């Protein structure tokens, strides 16, 4: 069986790799929570629970990637 390029890419590239590849496009989601499955941004919203639930609903068998897109606030712990 021949796999499409998209299928092969989805098998080797993680959700975080996809996020890294977004470059400045990611800046459009600053301050928002996003959920990614394979190489698709499947949800965005104001809370992680909200995007997690949406992602699980769309892809019930997959483990979603959830993150808040950080702005340039100074973080000191």
């Amino acid at each position, binding site marked *: 069986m021949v796999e499409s390029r998209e299928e092969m890419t989805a*098998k*080797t*590239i*993680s*959700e*975080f*790799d996809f*996020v*890294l590849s*977004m*470059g*400045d*496009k*990611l*800046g*459009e989601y*600053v301050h928002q*929570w996003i959920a990614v499955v394979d190489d698709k941004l499947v949800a965005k919203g104001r*809370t*992680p*629970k909200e995007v*997690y639930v949406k992602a699980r609903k769309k892809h019930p068998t997959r*483990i*979603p*990637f*959830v*993150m*808040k897109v*950080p*702005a*340039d*606030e100074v*973080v*000191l*712990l």
Partner: protein
Amino acid sequence: MTWQKKPKSITCKYLAYRFSLEGPPKYIRLPMVHVYLKSGDKEFTTIGLVDSGSTATFLPCELVEILELSNLQDSSARGAGGVFPTWLAKVDVLKLIKHKEPFDTFQNVRVHIPKQTGAIPYVVLGRDTIFTHFDITFYENKRKMTFIRL
């Protein structure tokens, strides 16, 4: 059963992008690694800041809701702005991932959770987790970091 040797050296790119909300563009460059978290039957992946300045590992309180963590104990942590209240909890599994492969796993990880919503926007991996398994070099201008397994 196959046995795969764990790589001695792992290099990860920084999370880097530019954005503009109002005024001039701003630049983000953060040493983030892909993190898997599991508690009970709840699991997801997210980003974790590799922070040599933090003695502990932190989890944003917003993520507690997804993991449904219980047995939260009152605690506190000291930051640059003084002492702030936290909960102490344990996460069943924390894995570090490169591409789709985990390159390290921690079990029963003790995490601090700031009680204030929005206090931290991402997981902070401090010297009690990732730094106990790796020597880490930051290449700030090349926007990458290298983990050398101990």
